[in-house]
């Protein structure tokens, strides 16, 4: 009898989180990427506490465009500003925006999608048409317009603007999943037993689609970092005294900087590449974990 119970315990299927973690550890590339991400994040957020931002972005007329040296590990830009310091603050800003946008758009998109999928019918119909409307908007153009219109401009407003136009994808995905889930027995049973819709949505349906949420948000993170860099590169992101990876990269639009002063833009370019690849690797591993057919472990 006791042996039977023990056996049953052993056979209990592993939790979603466990599967995700196991898949991550199986995939060496993803593991290395994850460690790299954690280190970089910890480093830039940690060290930027001690860095004086105003000091770094202050213009020094007598150190314009110095190549890398002992004093300036990665040289200076055309304002005589230390590129290494800008790189650290820039990475922090880019990451912060990426994470913030992903969280805001994620939370809103998930709530929207779950509600739409769970209730279905007319509500679903209306909500989906709203999404269709947002999806046909040329969102990059609209973001640019909003960015130029905003007068009080900060990390938060920038993130809000970006998030306002990037929640649709995740909302649709979650909605389709919620549509499936609510037809399953456990949801139907709960409903019959009189559990409130709120409880069913947030305590039963949502936990069952956690893995999907984690995977989508991870992949979105990479996309959002890219979007921020792209906007800053085009000149619609942050001003230069709020460095981000994109602003550093945009120095390369000057042909002379591109040709003669690699130290200004190359580190940022490499860092963007590495960051995106790392997030992507982790995301892919998570995605495989969420799909039993592709799992390696």
């Amino acid at each position: 009898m006791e042996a039977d119970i023990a056996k049953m315990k052993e056979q209990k299927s592993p939790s979603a989180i466990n599967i995700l973690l196991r898949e991550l550890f199986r995939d060496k590339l993803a593991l290395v990427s994850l460690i790299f991400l954690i280190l970089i994040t910890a480093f830039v957020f940690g060290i930027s506490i001690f860095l004086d931002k105003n000091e770094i972005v202050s213009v020094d007329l007598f150190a314009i465009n110095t190549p890398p040296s002992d004093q300036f590990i990665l040289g200076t830009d055309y304002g005589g500003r230390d590129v290494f310091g800008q790189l650290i603050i820039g990475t922090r800003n880019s990451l912060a925006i990426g994470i913030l946008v992903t969280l805001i758009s994620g939370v809103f998109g998930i709530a929207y999608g779950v509600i739409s999928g769970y209730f279905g019918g007319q509500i679903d119909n209306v909500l989906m048409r709203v999404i269709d409307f947002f999806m046909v908007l040329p969102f990059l153009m609209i973001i640019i317009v909003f960015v130029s219109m905003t007068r009080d401009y900060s990390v938060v407003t920038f993130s809000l603007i970006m998030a306002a136009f990037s929640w649709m994808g995740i909302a649709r995905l979650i909605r389709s999943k919620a549509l499936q889930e609510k037809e399953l027995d456990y949801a139907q049973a709960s409903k019959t037993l009189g559990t409130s819709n709120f409880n069913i949505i947030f305590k039963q349906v949502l936990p069952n689609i956690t893995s999907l949420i984690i995977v989508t948000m991870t992949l979105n993170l990479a996309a959002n970092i890219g979007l921020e860099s792209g906007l800053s590169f085009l000149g619609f992101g942050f001003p230069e005294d709020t460095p981000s990876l994109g602003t550093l990269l945009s120095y390369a639009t000057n042909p002379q900087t591109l040709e003669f002063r690699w130290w200004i833009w190359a580190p940022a370019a490499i860092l963007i590449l590495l960051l995106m690849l790392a997030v992507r690797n982790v995301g892919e591993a998570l995605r495989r974990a969420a799909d039993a057919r592709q799992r390696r472990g």
Partner: protein
Amino acid sequence: MRKATISKALFIMMLMMFLVLAACSSGSDDADDSSSDEGNGESEDTGSDSEDTDGKVYDIADFSPIKEGEPMDGGNLNFGLVADSVFAGTLNYNFYSDAYDSEIIDWFDEGLLSVDDTFNYTQDGAATWEVNDEGNEFTFTIRDEVNWHDGEPVTAEDWEFAIEVLADPDYDGPRYGDVTSIVGAEEYHDGEADSIEGLEVIDDKTLKMTFKHATPSLLSGGIWGYALPKHIFEDIPVADMSSSDEVRVNPIGMGPFKVESITPGESVTFSKNEDYWKGEPNLDTVTLKVIAPETVTQALETGEVDMVDSFPTDQYPDVEESLTNVEFLGTLDRSYSYVGFKMGTWDKENGKVAMDLENSKVGDVELRRAMWYALDNNAVGERFYNGLRWNATTLMPSFYENYHDDSIETPTYDPDKANQILDDAGYEDVDGDGFRENPDGEELVLNYASMEGGDTAEPLTNYYIQSWEQIGIKVEKTDGRLLEFNDFYDRIGQQGNDDPDIDIYSAAWSVGTDVDPTGLWGPNVIYNFTRWEDEENTRLLEEGVSEEAMDLEYREDVYKEWQEYMVDQVPVFPTVYRAKLAPVNERVVNWDIRDEATELERYEVGVTQDEPVVAE
């Protein structure tokens, strides 16, 4: 005599265009790096070390504005028009509004009046003139040999016709303001008269113009000198003229080259006008094409273009040595950068400035003067622009040889003096936050509008803010960033909707051929962005264009006094004067980049060999 009259409208438009082109960044030569083998302990000194090694400083006096030589017969010249976008293609002096278009029109058309190096009209142009004693009645005689490209002679009627078109109520171009000084033009515009009273065609080649007032400005670009071929435009309604094929597809002129073909927005081919009245041009053909600023260097290097209209000076230090096939010509630019203080708003109803010193944070002249002392513009010029810009002194750049007054003492970088002025004026740091409060003890934060455009815009803006911080003045960027060019001008008031939050701004101004500065400082002009009004200033401005000012010496004195007064009152202060550079392929000869050029004319330009010289 290349460009005869340059009108005031062009002057305003040049301000706009010029701001787009105001790109400039310094670049230091990256080859040398002496600081790399020094220890960290010496990092304090490294700044001054690099001063010796990396900052090449040029002097505009070392550049020649002119390239002369013995050309061969014929040949083709490739001219690059440096532009980010396509040109509009309104190819007629009477209708264009875009500086790129004017660059194209210069090749195939010209004004009837020519100017000397002080921009006063001379008797060497296609038309000669006589003036009555009062100085308000001009009689012009067009030379007999001056013909349109189609062989028809240029007549007094063509000239009258051009002015009638500009004054027509249906006219949709920006030049009406250039002819309002003629008697009866405004009545004609308002429909009260059938003809312009002040114009009288005496015979085929003679035109008499009567102006409302005699002012020295008339002689320096104040007369509309561009004829419009009546035999071609006669039947086109005025409202349709600027969009007609005669302006856009087959434009016609009287200049040294004829338009052969136009690829809209991209390129124009010209062939020589053998019948040109000054003589047959040297070149057979000229090909003009639009070149993006990013690719100028490559295009010059490979000989794709022989020369360009303007070269981004910030690229110069980097390419100076690699462009072995090109000679750089240089001269003074007609423009200066300045920092302005907002002291009021625009009264739209009455069309005048509404100054309000009481409520302006920068209403105190001592504060303004201290802020001038705080900026090290010589360092800015040397470091950011490698000496191709330099500390500006008065509001009349040295470009106006007669009027610019060197002897005026203007504030230069002296932070101690700035602090002293502020201390004396009662600006003290009351609450100990490191920034001064105003004399009433209230917090003083100035809102600074600065415009994007060009590479150094951002570091330069931050440098100014830092410099003001050094003397304890807290300055913040409007919206926390640089403003987009159109947004910037809207908010400092080009439509009269001044943003009340803006206290200071920096912009640039391209001065006209006429020295009269009323267009920027008069009490009734919308471009007086500072909204500063002052009796003495108005008096001096009026004096400068009065009848007595027909006497050059008198006028010089008036404007010297004005310059001094402006230095004293500091409604704005100029920051840097600028140089302009134009690269020219080795094979090109007889080219002069000065606007006031009188020695070499466009028909004399030539090449010494068939193929462009290519960089080694």
